[in-house]
Protein backbone atom coordinates (compact mmCIF):
# COMPACT_ATOMS: atom_id res chain seq x y z
CA UNK A 1 0.00 0.00 0.00
CA UNK A 2 1.23 3.44 -0.88
CA UNK A 3 1.67 6.27 1.57
CA UNK A 4 -1.28 8.73 1.62
CA UNK A 5 1.12 11.64 1.15
CA UNK A 6 3.89 10.41 -1.18
CA UNK A 7 4.95 7.54 -3.44
CA UNK A 8 6.71 5.50 -0.73
CA UNK A 9 5.39 2.27 0.74
CA UNK A 10 3.20 2.90 3.78
CA UNK A 11 4.58 1.22 6.87
CA UNK A 12 2.50 2.77 9.65
CA UNK A 13 -1.19 3.08 10.15
CA UNK A 14 -2.39 6.02 12.22
CA UNK A 15 -5.86 5.77 13.64
CA UNK A 16 -7.34 8.93 15.11
CA UNK A 17 -10.76 9.46 16.51
CA UNK A 18 -12.18 12.95 16.02
CA UNK A 19 -15.70 13.71 17.28
CA UNK A 20 -16.63 10.06 17.05
CA UNK A 21 -15.32 9.63 13.50
CA UNK A 22 -12.43 7.22 13.00
CA UNK A 23 -9.80 8.58 10.64
CA UNK A 24 -7.35 6.05 9.33
CA UNK A 25 -4.12 7.20 7.64
CA UNK A 26 -1.47 5.09 5.95
CA UNK A 27 1.91 6.75 5.93
CA UNK A 28 5.53 6.02 5.22
CA UNK A 29 8.06 6.42 8.00
CA UNK A 30 9.18 9.87 6.81
CA UNK A 31 5.69 11.38 6.40
CA UNK A 32 4.56 9.82 9.67
CA UNK A 33 7.33 11.54 11.56
CA UNK A 34 6.63 14.83 9.74
CA UNK A 35 2.97 14.54 10.72
CA UNK A 36 4.04 14.03 14.32
CA UNK A 37 2.90 10.41 14.27
CA UNK A 38 5.70 8.57 16.01
CA UNK A 39 5.79 5.29 17.83
CA UNK A 40 5.00 5.77 21.50
CA UNK A 41 4.75 9.51 21.02
CA UNK A 42 1.21 9.82 19.78
CA UNK A 43 -1.27 10.81 22.45
CA UNK A 44 -4.53 8.96 23.03
CA UNK A 45 -6.78 8.26 21.29
CA UNK A 46 -4.41 8.19 18.37
CA UNK A 47 -2.62 4.87 18.08
CA UNK A 48 0.16 3.52 16.00
CA UNK A 49 -0.35 -0.04 14.88
CA UNK A 50 1.73 -2.10 12.46
CA UNK A 51 0.34 -2.56 9.00
CA UNK A 52 -0.22 -6.28 9.51
CA UNK A 53 -0.88 -8.14 12.76
CA UNK A 54 2.60 -9.19 13.88
CA UNK A 55 3.47 -12.85 13.33
CA UNK A 56 5.53 -14.16 16.26
CA UNK A 57 9.13 -14.25 15.11
CA UNK A 58 12.32 -15.53 16.73
CA UNK A 59 14.50 -12.55 17.66
CA UNK A 60 17.69 -14.55 17.05
CA UNK A 61 17.17 -16.18 13.66
CA UNK A 62 14.11 -14.37 12.31
CA UNK A 63 12.04 -17.53 11.80
CA UNK A 64 8.32 -16.79 11.82
CA UNK A 65 6.07 -19.26 13.59
CA UNK A 66 4.19 -19.66 10.28
CA UNK A 67 7.39 -20.96 8.65
CA UNK A 68 7.74 -23.51 11.43
CA UNK A 69 4.12 -24.61 10.94
CA UNK A 70 4.83 -25.19 7.25
CA UNK A 71 8.21 -26.88 7.44
CA UNK A 72 8.16 -28.50 10.88
CA UNK A 73 11.68 -27.38 11.72
CA UNK A 74 12.84 -24.62 14.03
CA UNK A 75 15.51 -22.12 13.07
CA UNK A 76 17.84 -21.95 16.05
CA UNK A 77 18.09 -22.90 19.73
CA UNK A 78 16.53 -19.56 20.75
CA UNK A 79 13.31 -20.47 18.89
CA UNK A 80 12.39 -22.70 21.84
CA UNK A 81 12.19 -19.67 24.11
CA UNK A 82 10.56 -17.43 21.48
CA UNK A 83 7.79 -19.92 20.68
CA UNK A 84 7.56 -21.70 24.03
CA UNK A 85 3.80 -21.15 24.38
CA UNK A 86 3.08 -22.72 20.99
CA UNK A 87 5.69 -25.45 21.25
CA UNK A 88 5.01 -26.71 24.78
CA UNK A 89 1.63 -28.41 24.08
CA UNK A 90 2.91 -29.74 20.76
CA UNK A 91 5.99 -31.23 22.40
CA UNK A 92 3.87 -32.73 25.16
CA UNK A 93 1.73 -34.56 22.59
CA UNK A 94 4.78 -35.85 20.73
CA UNK A 95 6.45 -37.22 23.87
CA UNK A 96 3.75 -39.19 25.66
CA UNK A 97 2.70 -36.26 27.82
CA UNK A 98 6.17 -35.35 29.05
CA UNK A 99 6.83 -31.68 29.65
CA UNK A 100 10.38 -31.61 30.98
CA UNK A 101 13.73 -33.16 30.21
CA UNK A 102 15.00 -35.89 32.48
CA UNK A 103 18.44 -37.31 31.86
CA UNK A 104 21.86 -36.26 30.76
CA UNK A 105 22.96 -32.65 31.13
CA UNK A 106 26.13 -31.24 29.57
CA UNK A 107 28.81 -32.30 32.03
CA UNK A 108 31.19 -29.38 31.87
CA UNK A 109 28.29 -26.99 32.33
CA UNK A 110 27.17 -28.89 35.41
CA UNK A 111 30.65 -28.58 36.85
CA UNK A 112 30.36 -24.81 36.77
CA UNK A 113 28.62 -22.99 39.53
CA UNK A 114 26.28 -20.01 39.65
CA UNK A 115 24.17 -18.81 36.72
CA UNK A 116 25.67 -21.27 34.24
CA UNK A 117 24.52 -24.14 36.41
CA UNK A 118 21.10 -22.56 36.81
CA UNK A 119 20.85 -22.30 33.02
CA UNK A 120 21.40 -26.02 32.74
CA UNK A 121 19.35 -27.54 35.53
CA UNK A 122 16.73 -24.81 35.61
CA UNK A 123 15.01 -23.17 38.53
CA UNK A 124 12.76 -24.57 41.22
CA UNK A 125 9.84 -24.93 38.80
CA UNK A 126 11.78 -27.24 36.53
CA UNK A 127 13.03 -29.31 39.46
CA UNK A 128 9.50 -29.73 40.81
CA UNK A 129 8.14 -30.69 37.38
CA UNK A 130 10.90 -33.24 36.85
CA UNK A 131 10.24 -34.89 40.18
CA UNK A 132 6.49 -34.95 39.56
CA UNK A 133 7.08 -36.62 36.19
CA UNK A 134 9.39 -39.22 37.66
CA UNK A 135 7.05 -40.02 40.54
CA UNK A 136 4.26 -40.61 38.05
CA UNK A 137 6.50 -42.95 36.06
CA UNK A 138 7.44 -44.74 39.27
CA UNK A 139 3.79 -45.24 40.20
CA UNK A 140 3.05 -46.61 36.73
CA UNK A 141 5.98 -49.03 36.92
CA UNK A 142 4.99 -50.28 40.37
CA UNK A 143 1.36 -50.68 39.33
CA UNK A 144 2.49 -52.72 36.32
CA UNK A 145 4.76 -54.76 38.63
CA UNK A 146 7.83 -53.74 36.61
CA UNK A 147 10.12 -53.70 39.61
CA UNK A 148 13.46 -53.51 37.82
CA UNK A 149 12.20 -50.54 35.89
CA UNK A 150 10.94 -48.98 39.12
CA UNK A 151 14.43 -49.39 40.59
CA UNK A 152 15.95 -47.51 37.67
CA UNK A 153 13.44 -44.68 38.14
CA UNK A 154 14.21 -44.58 41.89
CA UNK A 155 17.91 -44.17 41.05
CA UNK A 156 16.97 -41.27 38.83
CA UNK A 157 14.87 -39.70 41.60
CA UNK A 158 17.76 -39.98 44.05
CA UNK A 159 20.09 -38.43 41.50
CA UNK A 160 17.76 -35.45 41.14
CA UNK A 161 17.46 -35.08 44.90
CA UNK A 162 13.90 -36.26 45.38
CA UNK A 163 13.73 -39.25 47.71
CA UNK A 164 11.72 -42.16 46.40
CA UNK A 165 8.56 -43.05 48.28
CA UNK A 166 9.70 -45.66 50.82
CA UNK A 167 6.23 -47.21 50.96
CA UNK A 168 6.54 -48.63 47.46
CA UNK A 169 8.18 -52.05 47.18
Amino acid at each position, binding site marked *: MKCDRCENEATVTDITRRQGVVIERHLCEKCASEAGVVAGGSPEPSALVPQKPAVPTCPECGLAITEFRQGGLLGCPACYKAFEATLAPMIERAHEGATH*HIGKTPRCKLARSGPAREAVVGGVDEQVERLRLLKRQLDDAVRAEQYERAATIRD*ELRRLGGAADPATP
Partner: protein
Amino acid sequence: MPSPAGPTPPDGPVPTGFTAEWLRGEGADADVVISSRVRLARNLADEPFPGRASAAQKKKVLGLCRPAVLDIPGHTMVWIDLHDTSPFERTLLMERHLISKQHAKGKAKAGESTPEGSPRAVAVAADERFSVMVNEEDHLRLQAIRSGLALRQAWEDADAADDAIESHVELAFSPRFGYVTACPTNVGTGLRMSVMMHLPALRLMGDIEKVKRAAADMNLAVRGFYGEHSDASGDFYQLSNQATLGKSERIILRELQDEIIPRVIEFERAARKTLADKRRTLIEDQVYRALGLLTHARMISTEDAMQGLSMVRLGSTAGVLPQLDRALIGQLMLMVQPGHLQRLVGQAEQERRMVARATLLRQRLA
Protein backbone atom coordinates in the same frame (compact mmCIF):
# COMPACT_ATOMS: atom_id res chain seq x y z
CA MET B 1 38.97 -61.67 -0.74
CA PRO B 2 39.41 -62.41 -4.44
CA SER B 3 39.55 -59.13 -6.26
CA PRO B 4 36.94 -59.14 -8.98
CA ALA B 5 37.50 -57.46 -12.30
CA GLY B 6 36.27 -53.89 -12.38
CA PRO B 7 37.27 -50.35 -11.61
CA THR B 8 39.64 -49.62 -8.77
CA PRO B 9 37.96 -48.35 -5.64
CA PRO B 10 37.70 -44.60 -5.31
CA ASP B 11 40.75 -43.10 -3.73
CA GLY B 12 40.10 -41.17 -0.60
CA PRO B 13 38.62 -41.68 2.79
CA VAL B 14 35.29 -43.32 1.93
CA PRO B 15 35.30 -46.83 3.40
CA THR B 16 34.71 -49.44 0.74
CA GLY B 17 35.31 -52.80 2.39
CA PHE B 18 32.70 -55.47 2.16
CA THR B 19 32.05 -55.98 5.82
CA ALA B 20 30.42 -53.29 7.88
CA GLU B 21 30.30 -53.73 11.65
CA TRP B 22 26.54 -54.09 11.71
CA LEU B 23 26.54 -56.94 9.19
CA ARG B 24 29.04 -59.17 10.96
CA GLY B 25 26.29 -61.42 12.27
CA GLU B 26 27.96 -61.53 15.68
CA GLY B 27 26.98 -60.56 19.20
CA ALA B 28 24.09 -61.41 21.46
CA ASP B 29 20.89 -62.76 19.87
CA ALA B 30 22.39 -62.46 16.40
CA ASP B 31 19.98 -65.12 15.13
CA VAL B 32 17.27 -62.44 15.25
CA VAL B 33 19.02 -59.13 15.86
CA ILE B 34 21.18 -57.78 13.05
CA SER B 35 22.44 -54.67 14.80
CA SER B 36 21.89 -52.11 17.54
CA ARG B 37 22.22 -48.42 16.90
CA VAL B 38 22.29 -45.38 19.17
CA ARG B 39 21.90 -41.88 17.77
CA LEU B 40 22.37 -38.62 19.64
CA ALA B 41 21.20 -35.29 18.18
CA ARG B 42 23.23 -32.29 19.33
CA ASN B 43 23.47 -28.63 18.32
CA LEU B 44 25.86 -25.78 18.91
CA ALA B 45 24.47 -23.13 21.25
CA ASP B 46 24.95 -20.02 19.14
CA GLU B 47 24.42 -21.07 15.53
CA PRO B 48 21.22 -21.38 13.49
CA PHE B 49 20.20 -24.96 12.73
CA PRO B 50 21.50 -26.23 9.35
CA GLY B 51 18.09 -25.90 7.66
CA ARG B 52 18.12 -22.16 8.31
CA ALA B 53 21.85 -21.48 8.03
CA SER B 54 23.58 -19.88 5.05
CA ALA B 55 26.41 -21.71 3.30
CA ALA B 56 28.88 -19.49 5.18
CA GLN B 57 27.29 -20.29 8.53
CA LYS B 58 27.35 -24.00 7.72
CA LYS B 59 31.04 -23.80 6.85
CA LYS B 60 31.65 -22.10 10.18
CA VAL B 61 29.87 -24.98 11.94
CA LEU B 62 32.05 -27.51 10.07
CA GLY B 63 35.12 -25.60 11.26
CA LEU B 64 33.93 -25.60 14.88
CA CYS B 65 32.94 -29.26 14.90
CA ARG B 66 35.90 -30.75 13.04
CA PRO B 67 38.54 -30.50 15.80
CA ALA B 68 35.98 -31.64 18.40
CA VAL B 69 35.00 -34.71 16.39
CA LEU B 70 38.53 -35.67 15.37
CA ASP B 71 39.60 -35.53 19.03
CA ILE B 72 37.11 -38.14 20.29
CA PRO B 73 39.20 -40.59 22.35
CA GLY B 74 39.14 -44.29 21.56
CA HIS B 75 38.39 -43.81 17.87
CA THR B 76 40.53 -43.02 14.87
CA MET B 77 38.19 -40.68 13.07
CA VAL B 78 38.35 -39.84 9.38
CA TRP B 79 36.70 -36.60 8.29
CA ILE B 80 34.91 -36.53 4.93
CA ASP B 81 33.60 -33.24 3.46
CA LEU B 82 30.56 -34.55 1.64
CA HIS B 83 30.20 -31.52 -0.62
CA ASP B 84 33.59 -32.56 -2.08
CA THR B 85 32.57 -36.17 -2.75
CA SER B 86 30.85 -37.74 -5.74
CA PRO B 87 27.25 -38.98 -5.59
CA PHE B 88 28.68 -42.50 -5.97
CA GLU B 89 30.83 -42.17 -2.85
CA ARG B 90 27.87 -40.82 -0.93
CA THR B 91 25.76 -43.79 -2.05
CA LEU B 92 28.42 -46.14 -0.64
CA LEU B 93 28.33 -44.30 2.69
CA MET B 94 24.55 -44.44 2.76
CA GLU B 95 24.44 -48.15 1.97
CA ARG B 96 26.85 -48.70 4.86
CA HIS B 97 24.44 -46.84 7.17
CA LEU B 98 27.10 -44.19 7.87
CA ILE B 99 25.00 -41.32 6.51
CA SER B 100 21.27 -40.86 5.97
CA LYS B 101 19.62 -40.56 2.58
CA GLN B 102 18.94 -36.91 3.37
CA HIS B 103 22.61 -36.30 4.17
CA ALA B 104 23.68 -38.02 0.96
CA LYS B 105 21.47 -35.66 -1.04
CA GLY B 106 22.42 -32.61 1.03
CA LYS B 107 19.59 -30.45 -0.16
CA ALA B 108 20.73 -26.84 -0.05
CA LYS B 109 18.55 -24.06 1.32
CA ALA B 110 16.12 -22.52 -1.17
CA GLY B 111 17.98 -19.96 -3.27
CA GLU B 112 21.35 -21.60 -2.69
CA SER B 113 22.51 -24.19 -5.12
CA THR B 114 25.75 -26.04 -5.30
CA PRO B 115 26.02 -29.15 -7.46
CA GLU B 116 27.06 -31.37 -4.55
CA GLY B 117 24.69 -29.81 -2.05
CA SER B 118 25.30 -27.76 1.03
CA PRO B 119 28.45 -27.74 3.22
CA ARG B 120 28.23 -30.89 5.32
CA ALA B 121 30.43 -33.70 6.51
CA VAL B 122 30.63 -37.09 8.10
CA ALA B 123 33.37 -38.38 10.37
CA VAL B 124 33.77 -42.13 10.43
CA ALA B 125 35.71 -44.29 12.89
CA ALA B 126 38.10 -46.75 11.26
CA ASP B 127 36.04 -49.74 12.45
CA GLU B 128 32.79 -48.06 11.32
CA ARG B 129 31.29 -48.61 14.77
CA PHE B 130 30.98 -44.90 15.30
CA SER B 131 30.24 -41.95 13.04
CA VAL B 132 29.16 -38.32 13.26
CA MET B 133 27.12 -36.50 10.66
CA VAL B 134 27.71 -32.75 10.69
CA ASN B 135 25.08 -30.32 9.32
CA GLU B 136 22.39 -32.90 8.69
CA GLU B 137 19.06 -31.82 10.24
CA ASP B 138 21.02 -30.94 13.40
CA HIS B 139 24.59 -29.71 13.68
CA LEU B 140 25.76 -33.04 15.08
CA ARG B 141 24.29 -36.50 14.82
CA LEU B 142 26.40 -39.06 16.67
CA GLN B 143 25.87 -42.71 15.82
CA ALA B 144 27.26 -45.78 17.54
CA ILE B 145 26.48 -49.16 16.05
CA ARG B 146 27.10 -52.73 17.14
CA SER B 147 26.39 -56.14 15.72
CA GLY B 148 23.69 -58.09 17.61
CA LEU B 149 21.68 -56.82 20.57
CA ALA B 150 24.15 -54.47 22.25
CA LEU B 151 22.38 -51.18 22.91
CA ARG B 152 24.19 -50.74 26.22
CA GLN B 153 27.65 -50.82 24.63
CA ALA B 154 26.50 -48.58 21.79
CA TRP B 155 25.04 -46.13 24.31
CA GLU B 156 28.25 -46.05 26.37
CA ASP B 157 30.24 -45.35 23.23
CA ALA B 158 27.96 -42.50 22.10
CA ASP B 159 27.74 -41.07 25.62
CA ALA B 160 31.53 -40.89 25.98
CA ALA B 161 31.91 -39.32 22.55
CA ASP B 162 29.25 -36.75 23.46
CA ASP B 163 31.22 -35.82 26.61
CA ALA B 164 34.37 -35.40 24.53
CA ILE B 165 32.65 -33.17 21.97
CA GLU B 166 31.05 -31.10 24.69
CA SER B 167 34.45 -30.29 26.16
CA HIS B 168 35.29 -28.52 22.85
CA VAL B 169 32.08 -26.74 21.91
CA GLU B 170 29.16 -25.12 23.71
CA LEU B 171 26.06 -27.26 23.12
CA ALA B 172 22.52 -25.92 22.99
CA PHE B 173 20.65 -27.00 26.10
CA SER B 174 17.43 -25.78 27.67
CA PRO B 175 16.61 -26.40 31.34
CA ARG B 176 13.09 -27.38 30.35
CA PHE B 177 13.49 -29.14 26.99
CA GLY B 178 17.00 -30.56 27.43
CA TYR B 179 19.14 -30.83 24.30
CA VAL B 180 17.28 -28.76 21.74
CA THR B 181 17.01 -29.94 18.16
CA ALA B 182 15.77 -28.58 14.84
CA CYS B 183 12.70 -30.82 15.05
CA PRO B 184 10.79 -30.71 18.34
CA THR B 185 10.21 -34.47 18.14
CA ASN B 186 13.88 -35.04 19.06
CA VAL B 187 14.26 -32.74 22.07
CA GLY B 188 15.17 -33.89 25.56
CA THR B 189 17.76 -36.62 25.38
CA GLY B 190 18.07 -36.32 21.59
CA LEU B 191 18.42 -40.08 21.83
CA ARG B 192 17.14 -42.61 19.35
CA MET B 193 17.92 -46.24 20.01
CA SER B 194 17.08 -48.62 17.24
CA VAL B 195 17.41 -52.32 16.74
CA MET B 196 17.46 -53.93 13.32
CA MET B 197 15.61 -57.21 13.54
CA HIS B 198 15.25 -60.11 11.14
CA LEU B 199 11.69 -61.41 11.41
CA PRO B 200 11.10 -63.87 8.54
CA ALA B 201 9.27 -66.51 10.58
CA LEU B 202 6.77 -63.98 11.91
CA ARG B 203 6.04 -62.97 8.34
CA LEU B 204 5.60 -66.59 7.22
CA MET B 205 3.22 -67.12 10.16
CA GLY B 206 1.29 -63.97 9.24
CA ASP B 207 2.12 -62.28 12.54
CA ILE B 208 4.04 -59.21 11.36
CA GLU B 209 0.99 -56.96 11.69
CA LYS B 210 0.66 -58.08 15.31
CA VAL B 211 4.24 -56.99 15.97
CA LYS B 212 3.64 -53.65 14.27
CA ARG B 213 0.50 -53.02 16.32
CA ALA B 214 2.24 -53.98 19.56
CA ALA B 215 5.16 -51.72 18.67
CA ALA B 216 2.78 -48.83 18.00
CA ASP B 217 1.10 -49.42 21.37
CA MET B 218 4.49 -49.15 23.05
CA ASN B 219 5.23 -45.94 21.12
CA LEU B 220 7.92 -47.52 19.00
CA ALA B 221 8.53 -46.64 15.39
CA VAL B 222 8.92 -49.46 12.87
CA ARG B 223 11.03 -48.72 9.79
CA GLY B 224 12.63 -50.65 6.96
CA PHE B 225 16.20 -51.60 6.15
CA TYR B 226 17.20 -48.14 5.04
CA GLY B 227 15.34 -46.16 7.66
CA GLU B 228 12.56 -43.69 7.23
CA HIS B 229 10.24 -44.18 4.26
CA SER B 230 11.95 -47.42 3.20
CA ASP B 231 10.22 -50.77 2.91
CA ALA B 232 11.08 -53.66 5.12
CA SER B 233 12.98 -55.35 2.33
CA GLY B 234 13.93 -58.92 3.16
CA ASP B 235 12.00 -59.05 6.46
CA PHE B 236 14.37 -56.61 8.15
CA TYR B 237 12.71 -54.17 10.51
CA GLN B 238 14.14 -51.35 12.60
CA LEU B 239 12.38 -50.76 15.90
CA SER B 240 13.13 -47.54 17.73
CA ASN B 241 11.88 -45.29 20.52
CA GLN B 242 9.88 -42.23 19.51
CA ALA B 243 9.61 -40.20 22.71
CA THR B 244 12.87 -38.50 23.66
CA LEU B 245 11.59 -36.11 26.34
CA GLY B 246 10.77 -36.95 29.96
CA LYS B 247 12.56 -40.29 30.02
CA SER B 248 16.19 -40.59 30.95
CA GLU B 249 18.64 -42.41 28.71
CA ARG B 250 18.75 -45.28 31.20
CA ILE B 251 14.98 -45.70 31.09
CA ILE B 252 14.89 -45.65 27.30
CA LEU B 253 17.72 -48.19 27.27
CA ARG B 254 15.94 -50.42 29.78
CA GLU B 255 12.68 -50.31 27.84
CA LEU B 256 14.27 -51.43 24.60
CA GLN B 257 17.23 -53.58 25.61
CA ASP B 258 15.65 -55.37 28.58
CA GLU B 259 11.89 -55.21 28.11
CA ILE B 260 10.61 -54.83 24.57
CA ILE B 261 13.23 -56.25 22.21
CA PRO B 262 13.69 -59.55 24.14
CA ARG B 263 9.95 -60.12 23.81
CA VAL B 264 10.05 -59.64 20.05
CA ILE B 265 13.10 -61.95 19.86
CA GLU B 266 11.22 -64.65 21.76
CA PHE B 267 8.18 -64.17 19.52
CA GLU B 268 10.31 -64.68 16.37
CA ARG B 269 12.12 -67.68 17.91
CA ALA B 270 8.81 -69.28 18.86
CA ALA B 271 7.59 -68.78 15.30
CA ARG B 272 10.79 -70.36 13.94
CA LYS B 273 10.35 -73.31 16.27
CA THR B 274 6.73 -73.78 15.28
CA LEU B 275 7.74 -73.72 11.63
CA ALA B 276 10.62 -76.14 12.20
CA ASP B 277 8.53 -78.57 14.27
CA LYS B 278 5.14 -78.43 12.64
CA ARG B 279 5.68 -76.94 9.18
CA ARG B 280 9.07 -78.39 8.38
CA THR B 281 8.26 -78.83 4.72
CA LEU B 282 7.04 -75.25 4.40
CA ILE B 283 10.20 -73.74 5.87
CA GLU B 284 12.48 -76.09 3.88
CA ASP B 285 10.57 -75.26 0.72
CA GLN B 286 10.90 -71.51 1.29
CA VAL B 287 14.60 -71.70 2.14
CA TYR B 288 15.54 -73.99 -0.77
CA ARG B 289 13.49 -71.97 -3.24
CA ALA B 290 15.41 -68.89 -2.13
CA LEU B 291 18.73 -70.72 -2.37
CA GLY B 292 17.74 -71.99 -5.80
CA LEU B 293 16.96 -68.48 -6.96
CA LEU B 294 20.19 -67.04 -5.55
CA THR B 295 22.38 -69.78 -7.00
CA HIS B 296 20.70 -70.17 -10.39
CA ALA B 297 19.19 -66.86 -11.46
CA ARG B 298 20.96 -65.09 -14.32
CA MET B 299 19.50 -61.69 -13.53
CA ILE B 300 18.29 -60.49 -10.14
CA SER B 301 17.03 -57.21 -8.64
CA THR B 302 18.19 -55.79 -5.27
CA GLU B 303 14.76 -56.53 -3.76
CA ASP B 304 14.70 -60.16 -4.89
CA ALA B 305 18.28 -60.64 -3.73
CA MET B 306 17.49 -59.22 -0.28
CA GLN B 307 14.37 -61.38 0.02
CA GLY B 308 16.37 -64.45 -0.99
CA LEU B 309 19.17 -63.64 1.44
CA SER B 310 16.58 -63.16 4.16
CA MET B 311 15.26 -66.68 3.61
CA VAL B 312 18.67 -68.36 3.48
CA ARG B 313 19.59 -66.46 6.66
CA LEU B 314 16.49 -67.99 8.23
CA GLY B 315 17.63 -71.37 6.91
CA SER B 316 21.07 -70.95 8.47
CA THR B 317 19.60 -70.30 11.93
CA ALA B 318 16.71 -72.78 11.75
CA GLY B 319 18.84 -75.83 10.96
CA VAL B 320 17.94 -76.07 7.27
CA LEU B 321 21.26 -74.72 5.97
CA PRO B 322 23.50 -75.03 9.06
CA GLN B 323 26.69 -74.89 6.98
CA LEU B 324 25.91 -71.38 5.71
CA ASP B 325 27.90 -68.62 7.42
CA ARG B 326 25.90 -65.66 8.75
CA ALA B 327 28.80 -63.27 8.18
CA LEU B 328 28.82 -64.22 4.47
CA ILE B 329 25.10 -63.48 4.23
CA GLY B 330 25.67 -60.12 5.90
CA GLN B 331 28.47 -59.36 3.47
CA LEU B 332 26.24 -60.22 0.51
CA MET B 333 23.43 -58.03 1.86
CA LEU B 334 25.81 -55.10 1.43
CA MET B 335 27.40 -56.24 -1.85
CA VAL B 336 24.07 -56.54 -3.70
CA GLN B 337 23.20 -52.88 -3.00
CA PRO B 338 23.42 -50.74 -6.16
CA GLY B 339 26.41 -48.62 -5.07
CA HIS B 340 28.51 -51.51 -3.82
CA LEU B 341 27.70 -53.50 -6.91
CA GLN B 342 28.76 -50.58 -9.07
CA ARG B 343 32.05 -50.55 -7.22
CA LEU B 344 32.59 -54.16 -8.31
CA VAL B 345 31.50 -53.95 -11.91
CA GLY B 346 31.62 -50.28 -12.77
CA GLN B 347 28.84 -48.07 -14.00
CA ALA B 348 26.35 -50.24 -15.80
CA GLU B 349 22.86 -50.22 -17.15
CA GLN B 350 20.05 -51.71 -15.11
CA GLU B 351 20.15 -55.00 -17.04
CA ARG B 352 23.92 -55.44 -16.73
CA ARG B 353 23.70 -54.67 -13.02
CA MET B 354 21.11 -57.41 -12.58
CA VAL B 355 23.36 -59.84 -14.44
CA ALA B 356 26.37 -58.82 -12.32
CA ARG B 357 24.36 -59.22 -9.10
CA ALA B 358 23.24 -62.71 -10.09
CA THR B 359 26.81 -63.71 -11.05
CA LEU B 360 28.16 -62.45 -7.73
CA LEU B 361 25.57 -64.38 -5.72
CA ARG B 362 26.17 -67.60 -7.71
CA GLN B 363 29.92 -67.38 -7.13
CA ARG B 364 29.69 -66.63 -3.43
CA LEU B 365 26.98 -69.12 -2.56
CA ALA B 366 28.16 -71.98 -4.75
